[in-house]
Structures are given as structure tokens and as C-alpha cells.
């Protein structure tokens, strides 16, 4: 293992290493070049690769992603930054009608290898236009992949995998994880897209965490273990496509399942996982599948309301205890 680095530098290093390896890779977005990214994630990239490969744009999300789709179809590998995930509303058109469908629609004449980085920012009081987790919209889009890194190690590995992937990949990075530090493997490695990771083995209940909720789930597991409960913790890592096989295998062992994600419970990833598990694993379940997720309302900037809205370790512990009776 190398020396500990922060999540945001893990992303940065992954991009820079891929840019060194492959001259078709470039970054594009608002403030990604000279300023080094709105939160510093792309710092230094313009110095090494120049403004041709670190492109500062006007505030034009639709045109940024449209450009990426067209450039990818023509043989480049763009890595775009959308900044706060809410701004992705302005380019859902390009992501859905164009990027996700193009290869299929054109009878496999083109590939659309591009990465779109979007940042979630729950917990900062950033308010209704800056704090949303919208990943489940994109999880329902065939032709697009969606990854949600949770640690510096997989932040780097998933970014490399995303850049090398021949399909459009939405890469969801949580602002609150930027400063998490961890040792990461030396040299080149990838974290495979479409595989979840068993973070803790256990026998009593399976907890599936999505994205930054891993941090909350880890805290919850510590509390539960002190009470003699042994949860198995799975970090989902990719939400499109879902690695259901790993989850099924775990549920066979534990017979209980709870999913924690920051996005709304209604129509969320948890709903899809729960439905699949009850279809395939009904006889293996000792309790209904449960979810810990955001309620069906909007996220407020007000701290007390925001805290109530966001799922966390305490809510997960309570849910698990309730499920185990």
C-alpha cells in the first residue's frame, strides 16, 4: 500500500494517470482548467496537459455533455464535470436521449466512451438546488452505467474503470467524502464496474450501502457489533448495472436485508433491490426487506430539517434493531 491520500486526490490521480496513458482522454467543464475545479479536484491537470486537454467552458451543461457525446462518438474519451448533481437536470437530454441510446439506436456503429462526474452535497445546508441525490433516475437508463465510489481506494479504481469503459458512465462523488483519507494500492489498478464489495462479513443481516452511506453503515455496524449483532455489510459501488448475485448470496446467509441510500426512498435503488430480492429469494427471507433513505419531500437548507431528511448511522441502527426484533 502507498501513503494515505484524500478521496479528491484519488480522483485527480486516476484522471491524470489515464490522461498520461491515453492521449484521447481530456477533461471539460466549468472551472476545471485554470481554477483546478470548483472544489480543487482537477488541480494541476491543466499545468501538465495544457488547456487543449483541460477545457474551461461557459456555463452550458447541455452543450458540455452534448460535446462529450459527439466527441466520444468521434473517438475521444471525455471526462466532464457537472459540479453539483442538481445541475445535471440541464443535460438529462444529452445523457438520456443521446448518450444512453446512441450505440443501440445506430445499430452498434458507434461507441460512446465518456465519464460524467457529478457531486452530491447533502449535509452542507446547500439547499434545494444543490443537495439532491438523483442517481436513481440514471439507474433506470439502459446504455448508461452509474458508479458511486465510497472510499479513496475505489474512487481511484472506479474512475480508471469508467475512463476505460466503452460506454457512458455517470460517476457520483460525494462532497462530504472529498477529505476522507486512506492508503491506496500503488501502481495501476481498477475497481470493476458492476461488482459490489463485501466490506464486513456477518451472519445476522445484510446491509447494502450506497455511495457515501458506507461511512454511516460502518458506524452503525460498529454499534451493532457491540450489541452482539453481526451484520454483513455490502458496498454497492455500481448502481447500474446492479450486482444482484452478490446480494442474493449474502441474503442466503443472513436471511435479512436492509438498504441504506441518501436519495429518496420512493422509486430509489433500494426499491429495485428489494423487489428483485423478494422475486428471487422469497423463501430465504425471515423478514420484509427494509430501506433507510430520504423521505418523500424536498431537502431543506435548514440544518435541523436537513438532518431529519438525510439517512444516517442512528437511523440505520434503529432499523436493524427493529428488524431483528
Amino acid at each position, binding site marked *: 500500500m502507498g501513503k494515505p491520500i484524500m478521496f479528491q486526490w484519488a480522483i485527480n490521480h486516476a484522471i491524470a494517470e489515464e490522461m498520461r496513458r491515453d492521449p484521447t482522454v481530456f477533461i471539460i467543464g466549468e*472551472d476545471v482548467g485554470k481554477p483546478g475545479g470548483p472544489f480543487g479536484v482537477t488541480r494541476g491537470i491543466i499545468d501538465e496537459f495544457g488547456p487543449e486537454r483541460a477545457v474551461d467552458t461557459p456555463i452550458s451543461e*447541455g452543450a458540455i455533455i452534448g460535446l462529450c457525446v459527439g466527441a466520444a462518438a468521434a473517438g475521444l474519451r471525455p471526462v466532464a464535470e457537472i459540479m453539483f448533481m442538481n445541475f445535471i*437536470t440541464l443535460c438529462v437530454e444529452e445523457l438520456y436521449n443521446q448518450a444512453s441510446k446512441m450505440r443501440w439506436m445506430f445499430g452498434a456503429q458507434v461507441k460512446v466512451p465518456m465519464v460524467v462526474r457529478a457531486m452530491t452535497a447533502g449535509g452542507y445546508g446547500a439547499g434545494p438546488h444543490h443537495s439532491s441525490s438523483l442517481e436513481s433516475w440514471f439507474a433506470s437508463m439502459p446504455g448508461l452505467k452509474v458508479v458511486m465510489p465510497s472510499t479513496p481506494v475505489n474512487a481511484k479504481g472506479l474512475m480508471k474503470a469508467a475512463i476505460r469503459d466503452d460506454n457512458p458512465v455517470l460517476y457520483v462523488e460525494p462532497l462530504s467524502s472529498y477529505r476522507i483519507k486512506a492508503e491506496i494500492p500503488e501502481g495501476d489498478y481498477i475497481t470493476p464496474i458492476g461488482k459490489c464489495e463485501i466490506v464486513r462479513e456477518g451472519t445476522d443481516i445484510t446491509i447494502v450501502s450506497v455511495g457515501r452511506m458506507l461511512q454511516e453503515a460502518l458506524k452503525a455496524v460498529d454499534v451493532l457489533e457491540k450489541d452482539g449483532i453481526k451484520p454483513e455489510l455490502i458496498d454497492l459501488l455500481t448502481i447500474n448495472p446492479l450486482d444482484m448475485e452478490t446480494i442474493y448470496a449474502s441474503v442466503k446467509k443472513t436471511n435479512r436485508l436492509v438498504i441504506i441510500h441518501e436519495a429518496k426512498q420512493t422509486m430509489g435503488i433500494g426499491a429495485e433491490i428489494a423487489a428483485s430480492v423478494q422475486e428471487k429469494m422469497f423463501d430465504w427471507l425471515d423478514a420484509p426487506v427494509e430501506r433507510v433513505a430520504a423521505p418523500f419531500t424536498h431537502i431543506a*437548507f435548514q440544518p435541523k430539517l436537513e438532518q431529519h431528511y438525510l439517512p444516517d448511522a442512528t437511523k440505520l441502527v434503529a432499523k436493524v434493531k427493529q428488524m431483528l426484533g
Partner: protein
Amino acid sequence: MKISKETKIDLFTRMVKIRTFEDETHKIFMAGKEMPGFLHLSQGEEAMAVGTCANLTFDDAIYTTHRGHGCIIAKGADLKPMMAELFGRIDGCCKGRAGSMHFADVKTGCMGSNGIVGEGMRLAIGTAFAQKYQKTKNVTAVFFGDGATGTGAFHESFNMAATLKLPVIFVCSINFYAQMTHKSVHIPIEHVADRAAGYGAPGVTIDGNDVELVYEEVSKAVKHCRAGKGPYMIEGITYRHHGHFIGDPCNYRPAGELEEWLKKDPIVLYEQKLLKEGVLDEKRIQQIKEECKNLVDEAVAFARQSPQPDIEELYKDILA
């Protein structure tokens, strides 16, 4: 255009009110935990807000941006519910749900700030459509920055407003930066108001720190809009004294740039002008500043005593 003494004092007072509110907000935010979230302050850009809104009544509408406190104060909103909103309290103008970036005060015609750059323009054409549809003579002014001129929202909205002859005044405050990126990086032409011609509408570029000039230009725009002639664009050159948000270290600014602009502070310039013209004397200026400070202090006291919203508030008002 002859501007009355009364109007001059009004213009000055509104600018001082904004500056005092923003400075106090800055202080409270920096002091710690009372104000949550992200704050984008508008010190330095007061003349654009005031010169525009002084031409409007509460029946006219404005839309503003993430940097919108100044516009809303200029329009005449009460400082108390504004400050309570910044504190996230139930007596805030949006019941503490929205905060700085998403302020609205509909009764004074402040139809919304916006966390999404450019979106105010799309909404503004709708309000202007309603004003025209309902055969009022009211107008809608929409504030936006240099950065927002890159959005599809700007081009689509301007074109639609011109096509449908909607009473919209596009007020662009060029403060030279979109977050950390200089205007020269994201705008390929010198004056964005030149684009108005492409949509068949008038567009002018003016000194956005000269409040009387802004007032006069906007009065022409209002007349144009009220006469049913469609949209009008005003581009004012100004500067934001502070960072993009509170906490921004501003290391993208060349040394000395801020100092040059501080010499062109719209309030200082206007104060000197009014003194020279004899419209105000030192004593009256001091009085105005104190009155504004008192208003802001009262707003802060009001905010502090207002309770936090109950959790149930999160679930109210989702549907009408």
C-alpha cells in the same frame, strides 16, 4: 433626464441598506454557527440592483440569482423575514426552507432567487407572458451575471421574449467572474449586450457602478417594455468586492484588481457626488447610515428570536 432630489436620496439609501445588510450578514456568517449553508454576497454591485428596482413597483416582477440579497432589498422587501430566512427560522420569507440562494418574497414582486444559473431568465419570460396576457402594463426584470450569458436559458429566453414581444428587462451584471473563471475565458465578445441585436432587441452596455446611469437606462427599458415593444437588455460593468461565496480565498484575482475597483465603489462615488451637489451633507449621510444599521440590527434581533421550524414543516406545502 432630471432626477429629483428625493429620488437621489432614495437611490443612495437603498444602496446603503444593501451594503449594511451584506456586511452584517458576512460578519454573522464568519462568526460561526448561526447561518447555515452557502452565501454569495453582492457588495460592490448595489448600483445595478438599485438603479433597476427604483424604476419598478411591487406589481412589477424581478427574478434574481444566487447573489440576490441586494436585488430583493432594492425591490423593497422587509429585512426581517429576509434575515430570518438566512438564519433558517420559521419567520423567514420562505419559512426557513430556502436560505440565501433560493429567497423569494412574492408580495413585493421578488419572484425568486435561483440556485441554478440562468434559470431565472426562463421563469421571467413566463411572468412577463402573464403580465402581457392579463393586459397589465407591468414588466419583469431579470438579473443575471456574466457567467449566465453562457446558458441556453439566456439565448432561448431572450429569443422567445423577442419573438413574443414580452416585457422583460434583461439586466446583466458583469462582475468579471463566473466563480473563479474570468469573463475573457467564457465570453468570446467584449460586450454581451451586443447579442440583443441578434434577437432584434435594444441592448446597451453601461457603467454599472453609476447608479443614476443605471436608473436612467432602466427607465428607458421600462418605458419600452410598458409600450409593448418587447425585451430590452442592459449590461452593467461592475465588480464583486468579496469572493464568489463567503470563504472563497479569491486567489484567481490579479494583485491590485480589487483595490482599483474599490476606488470605483458605487456607494462611495455616489456619496461624493451627492455631497458635491449639495443634495446631502455629512450629517444626513451619517444619519442614513445609522438608520440602515438600525434596520439591519432589528432584522438580526428578529431572526434570532424566531424559532427553528418543526420537523413537520418539511412535509407541508409540497402540493397546493
